[in-house]
C-alpha cells in the first residue's frame, strides 16, 4: 500500500477574505494612542501593526490576540502601553455565533487552522461542543506515559485502505483517514468544489461530486473525485463513471434521511440547469428511494452495473443510519461494495427540512459501534472499508469515530468552516450563501477562488493530522489503522463513577440561544 504523508511544507499562510476576522478576544485602541509602535514591537502574535511610512494608529488585528491571559507575559501590550490606550476583553459577539454542535470556539479554532495550518495558540476549545452527548461526552482514556512513542509526524502513518476485498480492483489508499463528502454543483460554488478537488489531490484523498453532475472543471482532478450516483441521476454518464476511482451510490444522506435531495429553484441557474439537463429556475426534487432497488439483489444489480462500466472503480454505498444499520452494512457487503459509508442524522451541509435534521435516523455515534460489531460477528469486517460521517466536526471526532469502529470519516461541514462558513444556515434560498460558499449567484459565487479554497483545506487537514499523530504517539501507535475499533481507549463521562469522571475535562455546557 502506498504510504504518503502530508508534509509541513505544504502549509502556507492563507488569511481571511475579510478585513475584520472574528476572534475570541477584542482589542481596543483609544484616542490616547500616539502611534509610538511599542505594541507592534512587543506582540509576538502580530496583533498590532505599525508601518514606518504611516504614522496613524492602525486597528489591531484582534482575532490573533490571546486575551487577558496575556497579562502573565512581559509583552502584555495593555500594561506596557505608555498611554494606557489599549484594552482587551472577551469578544461579546461570541454569544451570537455558533450553536450547540459547532461552538463559537470550535469555529474560530478551525478558521485559525485553515489560515495557519497550525493549532490555535489561544485558549480555544475546538474539539468539544455544547451538544451534551455523543462525541462531546466521549474522551480518550488518559494514556500511560510509558507508552509514548517519541517519533516525528513523518513517521506516523495516517493512511487508510479503501479496497480490502482483494477483488482485483485497485488497492487504493488515502493519506488521511478522511475524504470530502458530496456537495453538488448547484448547491455550492464551483470554485469551492474545484478547490476541494485540488486540495484532495494535494492531500492524496478524495472529494465527491454530490448529486449535481460532473462539471468539466473537475476533469483534471478526476483521480481524486468520487462520482456520486444519486436517485436523481443528475450528470451520471458512462463517461463520468469512467472518470472515477470510486463511484458512490447515495441511497440516503444524513441531512435528510429518508428524503430525496432538493435544490430550490433560485439556485437552478443556467449553468446548473445545463449540467443537470433541467429547466432554469425550476426546483429539483430527487426521488426517494431508488425506485429500482427494493432488495439486496436489486442493490447488487446496481453495484454490478457500475463495476461492469468501470472495471477499475471501487464502489461505495452511502446510506443513512436506520435502526437496522447493521443489516444494511452486511447487505452491502454481500452486494459487492468496497466501501460502506454511514451518514448520521446530525450532519449535512446543504439545505434540509429542520424536522428531518433533528429527528430522523440515529446519530452516527450510535451507528458506528453497532455496525462495527455486527460486521465482526458476520466475519466480514476486514473486507470492508467503513466510513462514517454526519456530525463529525473535528480531528478528535474523527479519531473517536475510528476508535469506535470506523476506518475513517467523511467530512463536509468542517471543509466549509475552513472557508469561513459561520453556520448561519441560510444556504438554501435566494442568492444563497452570503459568504459565497454555497452559492451559484454570479457575484457571490465568485467571491472565493480555487487557490484560496485549496490552501485553506490543506492547512486545516495538516493541523488535523498533527492532532492524530500526537494522539497515536500517546498510545504508542505508528498507524491510525491500529486505532480502528479500539473502543477500550475511550470513556464516556456518563458511564464513569464520579471520582473517575473528575479526571477528564467535563462536557462544555452553555445555553445557546437558537
Amino acid at each position, binding site marked *: 500500500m502506498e504510504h504518503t504523508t502530508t508534509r509541513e511544507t505544504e502549509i502556507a499562510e492563507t488569511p481571511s477574505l475579510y478585513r475584520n476576522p472574528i476572534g475570541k478576544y477584542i482589542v481596543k485602541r483609544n484616542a490616547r494612542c500616539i502611534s509610538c509602535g511599542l505594541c507592534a514591537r512587543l506582540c509576538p502574535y502580530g496583533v498590532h501593526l505599525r508601518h514606518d511610512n504611516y504614522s496613524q494608529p492602525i486597528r489591531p488585528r484582534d482575532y490573533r490576540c490571546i486575551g487577558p491571559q496575556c497579562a502573565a507575559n512581559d509583552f502584555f501590550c495593555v500594561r506596557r502601553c505608555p498611554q494606557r490606550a489599549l484594552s482587551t476583553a472577551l469578544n461579546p459577539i461570541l454569544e451570537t455565533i455558533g450553536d450547540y454542535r459547532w461552538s463559537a470556539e470550535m469555529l474560530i479554532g478551525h478558521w485559525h487552522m485553515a489560515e495557519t495550518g497550525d493549532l490555535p495558540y489561544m485558549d480555544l476549545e475546538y474539539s468539544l461542543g455544547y451538544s451534551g452527548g455523543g462525541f462531546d*461526552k466521549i474522551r480518550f482514556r488518559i494514556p500511560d506515559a510509558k507508552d509514548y512513542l517519541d517519533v516525528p509526524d513523518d513517521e506516523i502513518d495516517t493512511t487508510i485502505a479503501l479496497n480490502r476485498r482483494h477483488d482485483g480492483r485497485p488497492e487504493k489508499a488515502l493519506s488521511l483517514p478522511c475524504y470530502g463528502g458530496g456537495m453538488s454543483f448547484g448547491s455550492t460554488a464551483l470554485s469551492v468544489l474545484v478547490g476541494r478537488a485540488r486540495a484532495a489531490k494535494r492531500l492524496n484523498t478524495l472529494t465527491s461530486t454530490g448529486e449535481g453532475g460532473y462539471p468539466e472543471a473537475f476533469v483534471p482532478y478526476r483521480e481524486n473525485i468520487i462520482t456520486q450516483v444519486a436517485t436523481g441521476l443528475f450528470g451520471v454518464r458512462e463517461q463520468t463513471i469512467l472518470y472515477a476511482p470510486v463511484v458512490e451510490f447515495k441511497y440516503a444522506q444524513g441531512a435528510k434521511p429518508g428524503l430525496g435531495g432538493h435544490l430550490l429553484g433560485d439556485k437552478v441557474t443556467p449553468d446548473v440547469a445545463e449540467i443537470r439537463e433541467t429547466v432554469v429556475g425550476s426546483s429539483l426534487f430527487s426521488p426517494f428511494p431508488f425506485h429500482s432497488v427494493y432488495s439486496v439483489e436489486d442493490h447488487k444489480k446496481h453495484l454490478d452495473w457500475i463495476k461492469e462500466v468501470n472495471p477499475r472503480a471501487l464502489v461505495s454505498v452511502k446510506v443513512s443510519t436506520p435502526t437496522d444499520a447493521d443489516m444494511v452494512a452486511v447487505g452491502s457487503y454481500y452486494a459487492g461494495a468496497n466501501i460502506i459509508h454511514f451518514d448520521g442524522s446530525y450532519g449535512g451541509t446543504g439545505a434540509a427540512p429542520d424536522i428531518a435534521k433533528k429527528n430522523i435516523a440515529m446519530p452516527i455515534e450510535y451507528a458506528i459501534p453497532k455496525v462495527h460489531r455486527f460486521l465482526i460477528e458476520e466475519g466480514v469486517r476486514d473486507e470492508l472499508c467503513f466510513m462514517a460521517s454526519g456530525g463529525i466536526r473535528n480531528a478528535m471526532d474523527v479519531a473517536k469515530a475510528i476508535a469506535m469502529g470506523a476506518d475513517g470519516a467523511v467530512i463536509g461541514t468542517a471543509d466549509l468552516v475552513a472557508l469561513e462558513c459561520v453556520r448561519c444556515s441560510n444556504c438554501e434560498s435566494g442568492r444563497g450563501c452570503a459568504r459565497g460558499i454555497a452559492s451559484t449567484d454570479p457575484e457571490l459565487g465568485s467571491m472565493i477562488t480555487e487557490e484560496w479554497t485549496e490552501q485553506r483545506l490543506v492547512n486545516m487537514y495538516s493541523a488535523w493530522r498533527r492532532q492524530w499523530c500526537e494522539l497515536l504517539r500517546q498510545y504508542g501507535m505508528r498507524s491510525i489503522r491500529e486505532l480502528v475499533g479500539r473502543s477500550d481507549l*475511550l470513556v464516556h463521562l456518563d458511564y464513569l463513577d464520579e471520582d473517575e469522571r473528575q479526571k477528564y475535562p467535563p462536557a462544555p455546557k452553555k445555553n445557546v440561544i437558537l
Partner: protein
Amino acid sequence: MPKKYHIDNKIADPRFPPIAKYATVEFREECAGSCRLCVKRRCVYDIFKDNALHWANMTTPEYLYICKGCYRCIEECTKGIFSMAVNPEYRTLGDDYWTAGIISSTWRQAHTGTVPVSGAGYRGPFVGEGFDSIWTDMSEIVRPTRDGIHGREYINTVVELSRRPTRLQFNPDGSLATEMTPILEIPVPVLFQEPTFGLLSEKEFLSVVKAANSIGTLMFVQPERYSATLQDCASTLVPRLTRANYRDHTQLIQGSQMIELADDPGVEREFSKLREGRPDLFLCVGMPLDAKAASRALQLANTDLDSIHFYATDNGREAGTEAPRPLKDMIREVHLTLVENHIRHKINLIFSGGIALAEHVAKSLLCGGDAVAVDTPLLIAMECRVCYRCREGKSCPVRLGDVEPKWASQRIVNLVSAWHSQLLEVMGAFGIREARRMRGEVGRSMWFDDLERESFGPMFGTRKVTGIG
C-alpha cells in the same frame, strides 16, 4: 384513488416585525461618514435599505429584524464599527418550554405555510427531555419508503375518532349482522382546543374556529364561547360539557358531531342517555393526564365511548404531581395499559398540552396516541409572543384581541399546512402511508435509553447517570 387532502396555504404577512435573533450593533461615532465601501449598501440581504444614510441623517437605531447573521458587515466594515448581539427582545420570547426558537419557527410557518428548511446541519443538543429523546426511523434499501411530500405517492393523514366493534358477525347468507357504528374521521391528526391564556376577543376566537373549519378538524370549546357567529361552524366545535350541565346545552349537542364530557365517577351512565336522541353523536371524555389516567382509560374503554381526551400541562408533562413525567411516557403508559388488556383498538386517545412542533404530532402517534390537540401554537400563529402579560391583565404587545379573522385564520391554516407537510416527510421517511398505522408503532422509532444501552453499553459498561445526563 380518493382526492388528495390538500391545505390551501397563502402568504399571510406579519402585522408586526417578527422579533429575530440577531441585532447588529454599530458604533456610529467611529463611522467614516461617506465610505465608498460602506457595508450597509453592500448587504446581501439589503437589510439596511432604510438606514444607509450618513449617520447624522439616520433615524434612531433600530433592531434589524431581518438580519440573517452572515456577519459580513462586521467583518468588512472599513472602520470595524459593527458588532452583533442577541436581540434583547428575542430573549424575552416565551419561556423554557416555549422557546424563542419554537416561537420564531412557528411564526415563519404561519407566515408562509411551508416546511422550515435550513442548511449546515443540525444545530441543537444531542438529546433532550421528552420527545427530544426519540428519533424516528427511516427506511433503507430493502424497506420501501414513501415519497409523498412531492406528490408521487399518496400518504393519508386521516385518523378516526369513532369507536369500533370488537368483532364482526355475519348472517347465514353472508350479510353483515353486526350493527355498524357511525364513523368520524378528521383529515389530520391535529385537533384544536382553547389555550389556557391569550384568547382575548370574539374575533380571535372566531379566527381559530374558522381555521379548524377550513382544515376539516375539530375544536374543543367551553359552551360559554358559543355565539350566533359560530352557527356555520357548529359541526367543527366539540363542546366541553359536564354531567351536571349537559342537559342545559341540548341545542349545542344537536349541532355537534362530537361532545366532550368531563370525567366524573359514573360518567359512563350518561352515554346511552346522550345517544337516545342522537345515535350518531360521538362521545369523548376529557380528563387530566395524571397517574390515574391509564387505569381510568381502561375502565372507559370497556364502555361504548368513542375517544378519551387527556390534558397534560401546558409544558407537556403529567398533571397533578410535583415530579411530572414527560408526555411521551404518559402516552406510553395509557396506550400500553390498553394494549395489555387487549382493548386498545376499541377506543381513540387524544392527547393535549405542550404540543409545540410538528414532530410532536408524529412522536405522539408513535408513542400510542391517535391524535393530538393543540392550543398555544394557535396563538403563536397569530403572532403571540407567549409573554403571559394577558394572564396578569396587562395589554397584549401584538394586540391579539384586534386580529382580523380572515388574516388570522389563514395564519393558523398555514401553520397546520406546514405541520401536515412535515408529518408527510417523517411518514415518508419511515415508510408508512397511513397515519392510523403510526399508532404505537415504536418499531419505527429509536429511543435514547435503548440506543445508549445497545450501542454504548458494550463499550462503556453501565450508565452511571440517570436521565439524559
